[in-house]
C-alpha cells in the first residue's frame, strides 16, 4: 500500500517511509519481470504480443505531422520535380563545380576546401581575391557555364558556413557547418581515390528536403565508378545533415566492411532562396526563424 509521502510532515519520518516504499517498489518490479520472463520463455507468443503493443515513442516516430512529406506515388510532385531547376542535371548535364571561400581564408578553411575538392569529382578551387563581390563572381561563373558554386565562409579562423549556389538561375542554400573533421584526424582512415563516388541521400522526406537533396546530388556525376568502392553519404536526421565518406568492401558475400575516408562534417540548413544569391532583396523559399520552432517534434527537411 503506497502512502503518499507528501502528507507526512515530519521530514525524518517522511524520508524513512519513502526509502522503504522505494525498495518495495523495486522488489515488486523485479518480481514481476522475473515472472514475465518465465511465462514468455514458456510461451513466446506472449512476448510477441507485448512487443507489438509497447512500441516505444522515439523522437523520430513522434515527429509532428507534416503535409509536406512527399508521398512516393504523388504524380504532381514528380512532375514538378521533373521540371525544376535541377531538371537539366537529371537529364544528363555534367556538373561543373567551382569552390571558393570568403576573402583571406586561413589554413583550416583551405584545408577543409581541399578535402571537399577530393570528395566532389571535377571540381575547381579558385582562391578568393578581394577585387570582386560574390554577385559578380556568380555572373562570371554563369558566363563560363558552371553549374554550381560552393562558397565556404570563414569566421574566427575556421569554416562556419557553406553556401551552395546552383547556376544558372537555381536556388541558393546556406548551411551552418559544424563538427568538421578532416580525414587525417580520423583514426584508421582510408585513402581517397579519384573515382566517382556513389551517393547516398538519406531521409530527405519533405518537399524542401527533396530540393536540398537534389542540390547535393547535382554536384556529383550521375554515373558512379563502382570500381572505386567509394560512397559519399548525406544523412538527414531531424534537420541535421551528416556527411560521411567511406570505402566499402564485401566480405565473402556475408557482410560489408566500411573504412571511413573522411572528411566528416554536419550541415544545418539556414535558408533556401529562390534564385541566385541575394540575401538582402532575394525571395526566400524557406528561412529559419525562431518562431518556426513550435515543438521539439517538428522538422522541416
Amino acid at each position: 500500500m503506497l502512502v503518499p509521502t507528501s502528507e507526512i510532515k515530519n521530514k525524518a519520518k517522511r524520508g524513512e517511509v519513502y526509502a522503504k516504499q522505494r525498495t518495495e517498489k523495486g522488489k515488486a518490479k523485479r518480481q514481476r519481470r522475473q515472472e514475465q520472463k518465465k511465462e514468455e520463455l514458456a510461451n513466446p507468443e506472449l512476448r510477441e504480443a507485448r512487443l507489438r503493443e509497447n512500441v516505444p515513442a522515439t523522437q523520430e516516430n513522434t515527429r509532428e505531422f507534416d503535409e509536406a512529406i512527399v508521398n512516393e506515388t504523388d504524380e504532381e510532385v514528380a512532375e514538378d520535380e521533373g521540371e525544376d531547376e535541377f531538371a537539366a542535371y537529371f537529364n544528363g548535364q555534367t556538373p561543373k563545380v567551382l569552390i571558393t571561400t570568403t576573402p583571406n581564408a586561413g589554413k583550416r578553411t583551405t584545408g577543409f576546401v581541399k578535402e571537399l575538392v577530393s570528395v566532389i569529382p571535377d571540381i575547381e578551387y579558385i582562391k578568393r581575391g578581394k577585387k570582386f563581390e560574390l554577385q559578380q563572381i556568380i555572373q562570371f561563373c554563369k558566363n563560363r557555364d558552371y553549374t554550381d558554386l560552393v562558397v565556404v565562409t570563414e569566421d574566427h579562423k575556421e569554416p562556419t558556413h557553406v553556401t551552395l549556389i546552383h547556376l544558372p538561375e537555381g536556388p541558393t542554400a546556406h548551411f551552418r557547418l559544424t563538427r568538421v573533421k578532416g580525414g587525417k584526424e580520423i583514426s584508421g582512415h582510408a585513402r581517397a581515390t579519384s573515382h566517382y563516388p556513389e551517393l547516398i541521400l538519406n531521409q530527405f522526406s519533405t518537399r524542401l528536403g527533396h530540393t536540398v537533396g537534389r542540390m547535393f546530388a547535382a554536384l556529383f556525376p550521375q554515373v558512379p565508378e563502382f570500381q572505386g568502392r567509394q560512397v559519399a553519404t548525406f544523412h538527414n536526421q531531424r534537420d541535421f545533415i551528416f556527411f560521411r565518406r567511406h570505402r566499402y568492401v564485401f566480405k565473402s558475400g556475408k557482410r560489408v566492411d566500411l573504412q571511413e575516408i573522411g572528411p566528416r562534417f554536419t550541415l544545418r540548413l539556414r535558408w533556401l532562396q529562390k534564385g541566385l544569391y541575394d540575401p538582402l532583396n532575394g525571395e526566400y523559399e524557406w528561412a529559419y526563424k525562431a518562431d518556426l520552432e513550435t515543438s521539439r517534434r517538428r522538422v522541416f527537411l
Partner: protein
Amino acid sequence: MRFYTGDESGLIKCIDIDANVSLLEAQAQAAKRTKAAAKAKANLKAGEQAAAADTSLAGVEIRTVDGRVNRSNGIQQMCTTKWATNDRAFAVARKNGNIDVVGFEGEQLFTYTDEKFAERVSIKHNGRTINERSYVGLSASDSHFLSCTNMGEVRYQSFATSEAKLMKLPLDACRMRTHNERSSVFAVGGREHELSVWDAETLQESGAGAKPTPIFRAKNVANDFLNLRVPVWITDIQFTSEDATNPTLAVSTGHKQIRLYDARAQQRPVNDWEVSKHPIYHLQASHVRPELYFADNMGNVQQMDMRTGHVFGAFKGIAGAVKSISLSEDGAKIAVAGLDRYVRVFETGSMRRPLHRAYVKQRVSHVVWDWEHKDFSTQEIEEQEAEDIWETMDKAALKKKSNKRKAVAI
C-alpha cells in the same frame, strides 16, 4: 472557406477548408494517425510494405481546377472576372505570355498570345540587366482585360473584338493595380519608375496621335538629410478610396517604406514611413478597416494602421516569402500564400492567431478568397434540412373551427 490559387506550374487549384475543424483538432487527429502508423510500421511482417502515409489534414480538401504541371505556363498574375452571363471565371497571365480566361470548372474560355514574350530580352537598365519579360498586372472586366508587363507595355483589349489600346510606359515596372470600382483606372510603379495613375479608356488606338495624360503622377520625396536623391522602387500599390478621379493610394517600396498618396493634396507622398527591416514586396489594404497588410521577402507579414503608420504586429509561422494576400468578405480573416507552398489563414484581430493551413504542393503566386462561397455552421445546416423536410410534406387540410356554440343536450 474556399480559396483559389494560381501557382508557378500553371495550375489553378480550389482549396476548401472546413471552418468548423480547428487547426489544433486537425493536428491532434493527424498525430494519432502518425502514432498508429508508427506502431504498424514497427510491427510489419518481413517483406510487407508500409501503407502509404495519409498526408492531409482533416478539414482540408484540395482539387486542381485546371492545368497540368508545366513551368512555362506558370501563372504570374490572376484575377476573377465575370464571363458572358454571370459565369465566374479566372483571368490568368502566364509566363509564356498567354492571357487565358478559365472558367471556375476549368473550361477554356479565351486565350490571347503575346508574341513578344518569345523574344530573347537582355536590357541593361539602371545598373541591372532585365533578362525576361513578365506580367506585372492583370485585371479583367466583362468586356476588356488590362495587362501590363515589366517592360511597361500596357494593353487594354476587348474580349470580343481584338481591338487593343496600347501604351508604352517606362521600363522596369514592378506592379500594376487597378481600381476596385472602375477597372479601367490603373496605377503603375517600379524601379526608378515613379507612380502614375492612368485611365485605360482614354488611351488612343495604337498608332494614333495625342499622348494620353495621367490622372495622377507622383513626385519623389524630398532629398534626404545628406541632400541625396532618394531612390525609387515601388513594389506594390493599393487603391484606398472609392474615388477614381482623385485617387488615394498606398504604396510599398523595396526600400522598406510604406507611402500614402492623395491626388487632391499633393504629388509627393502624404505619408512616408519606414516600417520594415526587409524590402516589402506585397501590400494589401483592408476593405473594412483603415489597415494595411504588407509582406517582405522573408515571410514576415505585418499589420499596420494606415492613419498613424503604427505596426501592430506580425502573423507568425510563415517560413517562406509571401506572394499573395487575400482577405475574407468581413475582413476578419486573412489568407496568405507564397513560396513555402502553404495557404495559411489567420485572424486579423489583435491576436493574429493562425486559424488553418493547407499544403498546396506548388509555390503559390496568387491566392483569391472566394467570397461567394458561404460556410454554413452546423446549426444552419440543420435548420436548412428541417426546412427542406417541412417543404416536402403535404399541407394538411385546415379544419374550420365552428363559432356556433353547440346546442347543449338537455
